[in-house]
């Protein structure tokens, strides 16, 4: 019998930040100006999340000739006009200042002249707007942010997960935590920020890090928060296809930004047929569908992808601008200076998430959210380079407005809540099925039935599978596995939210394509708005009404 009796403890802070990726680190830095701030990471600070592995860059209007108006239009158009315009306005107008914050803290982005940041072209944008540090832009940001965090008094609690939000009536008052040894704990806070990142690990083929399991969506949902547009899953056009265990690993859009071309097995530059104007630098949804169509119609490569080729570029340019791509492919026996890469779409980003205001407030008092766990900024398709900007703009705002939250008094019995959580853990100890077995089937059904092209029939099939899996109890053979059990439970919740959103949205828009539905409207005059889901109900907004 496994000992699960929790040696729990309760700690208090003014602001609790859950998640230490780009958004969480930025939020914590801001919040720490207002009071005691705790940064909770399920990994070591800065080593988790997808920011550290983000390659391409950060969109900011810096250069003469560009304007926030243009950035706004590109983002709205790229997002198939499902974006919340207020959030987009905030994103484009504050992104340059947040980039300057990073510079003030010591970031080393590439320069094209003395004190002039270099900017590269990215898909769906009419201006070279993407700032970068080679192809390790996100790493540069995380390095900068963690250095600053080490300079502050922020309390870092590492390798500890939040497994539920702590509810005091309707107010979010902190979180229940589980450390890596399986010990429960409670953190109470005046304000709580969810910055847990994305969740495309729910798909068999994904670019996300191991922490991209969507826990924040599930935590917010269980607590009663409203989520929007969960069906909007971005499939990045270019993920690795070989060897099998590396499928899905991100091949940065910067490869195409620097001039990489896509070819099928006949040597055709097939983007000519799908978007002759923008070619390889069309939006991600379009390029992903084009690649998938080529593969499905038999023009794919040996390993089930298409070719992405930079061999026409000078070797030294590849070495300088794409060093990580070069190094990674060399590790797998491919020299991209002389050989083409093989690529295929891979689940990359959840555009949907917790509904927020421009102040990063969710629909629950005391709960703020920033980064990929939020919805509404990127609409139905995110532009490359907007995610890193999003983490900084809304990370800062979440930290600021959470920091300004007045002190609150706890009225709930923490012991009672802990005994409920302990019972949940006890149930996992008596579970039925290894968590990785549940996760594997979940990922497969999501990839097969809720992928790039969707039908009601397949989505229903996925739902049946998810329901069956939700009836299994993940088994922890040791209390150190309790985290994994909580995570797979959360993944099932996220999968269900994606499927429900996809069933609710009876149209094709951006990344969401219903091949079983014929529509006679363009995204701009779609009769539909956001899909809205919470434990209190689900709906889709229709024109002229708000959910």
């Amino acid at each position, binding site marked *: 019998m496994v000992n699960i009796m929790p040696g729990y403890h309760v700690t208090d802070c003014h602001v609790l930040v859950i998640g230490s990726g780009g958004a969480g680190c930025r939020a914590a830095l801001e919040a720490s100006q207002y009071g005691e701030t705790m940064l909770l990471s399920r*990994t*070591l*600070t*800065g*080593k*988790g999340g*997808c920011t*550290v*592995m983000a390659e391409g860059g950060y969109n900011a209007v810096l250069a003469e000739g560009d304007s926030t108006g243009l950035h706004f239009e590109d983002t709205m158009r790229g997002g198939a006009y499902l974006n919340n315009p207020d959030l987009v306005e905030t994103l484009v107008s504050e992104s340059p200042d947040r980039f*300057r914050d990073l*510079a*003030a*803290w*010591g970031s*080393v*982005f*590439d*320069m094209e*002249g*003395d*004190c*002039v*940041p270099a900017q590269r072209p990215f898909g769906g944008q009419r201006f070279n707007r993407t700032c970068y*540090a080679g192809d*390790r832009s*996100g*790493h*540069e940001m995380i*390095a900068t942010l*963690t*250095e*600053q965090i*080490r*300079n502050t008094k922020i309390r*870092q609690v*590492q390798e500890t997960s939040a497994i539920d939000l702590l509810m005091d009536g309707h107010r979010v008052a902190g979180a229940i935590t589980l450390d*890596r040894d399986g010990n429960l704990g409670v953190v109470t806070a005046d304000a709580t920020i969810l910055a847990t990142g994305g969740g495309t690990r729910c798909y068999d083929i994904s670019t996300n*890090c*191991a*922490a991209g399991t969507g826990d924040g969506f599930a935590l917010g949902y269980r607590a009663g928060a409203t989520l929007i547009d969960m069906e909007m899953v971005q499939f990045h056009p270019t993920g690795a296809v*070989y*060897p*099998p*265990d*590396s499928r899905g*690993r*991100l091949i940065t859009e910067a490869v195409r930004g620097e001039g990489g071309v896509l070819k099928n097995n006949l040597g055709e530059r097939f983007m000519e047929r799908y978007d002759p104007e923008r070619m390889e630098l069309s939006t991600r949804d379009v390029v992903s569908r084009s690649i998938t169509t080529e593969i499905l119609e038999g023009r794919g490569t040996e390993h089930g992808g298409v070719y992405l080729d930079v061999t026409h570029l000078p070797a030294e340019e590849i070495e300088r601008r794409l*060093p*990580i791509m070069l*190094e*990674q492919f060399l*590790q*797998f026996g491919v020299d991209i200076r002389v050989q083409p890469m093989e690529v295929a779409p891979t689940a990359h980003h959840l555009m949907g998430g917790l509904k927020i205001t421009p102040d990063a407030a969710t629909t629950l008092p005391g709960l703020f959210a920033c980064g990929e766990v939020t919805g509404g900024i990127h609409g139905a398709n995110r532009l490359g380079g907007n995610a890193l900007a999003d983490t900084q703009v809304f990370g800062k705002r979440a930290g600021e407005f959470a920091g300004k939250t007045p002190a609150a008094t706890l009225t709930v019995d923490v012991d009672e809540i802990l005994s409920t959580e302990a019972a949940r853990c006890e149930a996992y100890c008596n579970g039925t099925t*290894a968590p*990785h077995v549940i996760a594997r089937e979940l990922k497969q059904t999501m990839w097969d039935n809720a992928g790039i092209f969707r039908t009601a029939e397949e989505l229903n099939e996925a739902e049946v599978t998810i329901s069956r899996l939700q009836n299994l109890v993940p088994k922890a*053979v*040791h209390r*150190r*596995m309790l985290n994994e059990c909580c995570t797979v439970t959360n993944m099932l919740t996220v999968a269900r939210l994606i499927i429900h959103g996809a069933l609710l949205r009876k149209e094709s828009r951006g990344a969401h394509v219903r091949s079983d539905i014929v529509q006679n409207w363009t995204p701009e005059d779609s009769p539909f708005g956001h899909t809205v889901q919470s434990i209190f109900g689900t709906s889709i907004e229709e024109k002229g009404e708000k959910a």
Partner: protein
Amino acid sequence: MNTITFTIERFDPDTDPASHTESYTVEINEGARVLDALHAVREQCDPTLAYRYCCGSGQCGSCSVRVDNEPVLACMHEAHDEMAVAPLNLPVEHDLMVEMESYLQDLAGITPGIFSGYLTMDANEAIRPIRDCIECLACVSECPAIAVADFAGPAAMRQEMRIALDPRDDRDRAALTVDEGLFTCTTCQRCLEVCPKHIAIPGKAIEKLREIAHREGLTLPRHQAVADMVRSSGRTVDRIMGTVLEQVAEVIEPVGEVRGEVGFFVGCMYNSRLPETAMKMLAVLRRNGIRVIIPPEQVCCGSPLIRTGQTDYLPSLQRTNIECFTSRGIDTVLTMCAGCGSTLKNDYDTPYRVIDINELIAEYGIEPPVSSSVPMTYHDPCHLKRGQGITEEPRALLRMLTDDFREMPARCCGAGGGVRSGLPDVAANLGRDRREEIAKTGAAACVTSCPFCEFHIAEHSDVPVINITTLLFEAYEKMDEESGVDPGWKDLPCRIINPKTAE
């Protein structure tokens, strides 16, 4: 699917008094990484296996482990049958997880607000080469200086240099790093060897910080004395015996057919402290048909100055050492000192090819020597193994010289980077570590190929330390004794100091 069997070093702090090794057999996909194999163990054998990982693409630095004793990122290194997976050489928390938090927390950041603009191109270019660190701590776990001295370690030094180069920070990093043990680093380059991002910490951080320290007058007194000596005499050591350059003629013709011709860069240590060793090497080449030209005006290569950050006098040394060979039309220059060889190859832009004696022997081939039955081990000089990538050539030679060659782990002996002269206690601690490793092999002699290692290990070892070419020389002597034939290869032509004064 492939089936592999491999071992993992396990440790559970709740139940295990010490770590132990377990063997696992798992099914993995073609091309699987070490991390995939660890996942397979957790899914197929033991769900309690503890290890860190996150990004899966070599960017977060969570998953470094040792595979067959070399640190790697588990997510990037290919798994193979019979591999041995172990945690880094840091305090183990649980199985493959080591304590990283406290080290990471102490890494410095810039002080914001002093100057907050974007960088100039120059500042950007200067910082770039040392900015890619993913804080995996492979370097820290392998650093020999950390083990014996109060040293903040390679990752911290890299970060300090990155900040020192940043105009947005104005603290005095060099003074700080001197307190953090800047001068305890032996520049053995083990950190560079294990860095998954190939960051040249010794050359691009340590030596550069020492340059700043030098400008601020923080150079260690003994290092300063060496620099003074070089400035006044062109040499790092004083004259206490007849040197090679004083004794040997400028051109040494081989006995028999001429198979090759090289210039010889003697180096301060062989010239003035170990001239016998150098002359035995010259005799070996004479026997093997190599013509050697030794320009007498050559001076110190400057390595001790570069390693200790005193580089202002370096260009003049470089000029002399390049011209003395090019003016004689020499296109290949031989070194037998690992440090000089590494310096000429890496810190010079020579118009001639530089070749180490071990490379030369492997390239030209030699008369096979008689082998002995004495058990011998080999110490890899850092400046030969990591500075020049030479490891196989001396081993091949040694296997010709003994029937009983025994390996020991390659680790810095402590003599490099100015540590032996500047901080003798630190150097002695590392030297004692070598003694223990040599003793473990049971070898009766330790063979090496670097004057600093020879000198330093000899002070600490219980068994004789022999230069590899001396061993070869002795084998030829023995052959001559047995055959009773001596073709005169040992009699090197003497130098005529100055014909006019001699008259």
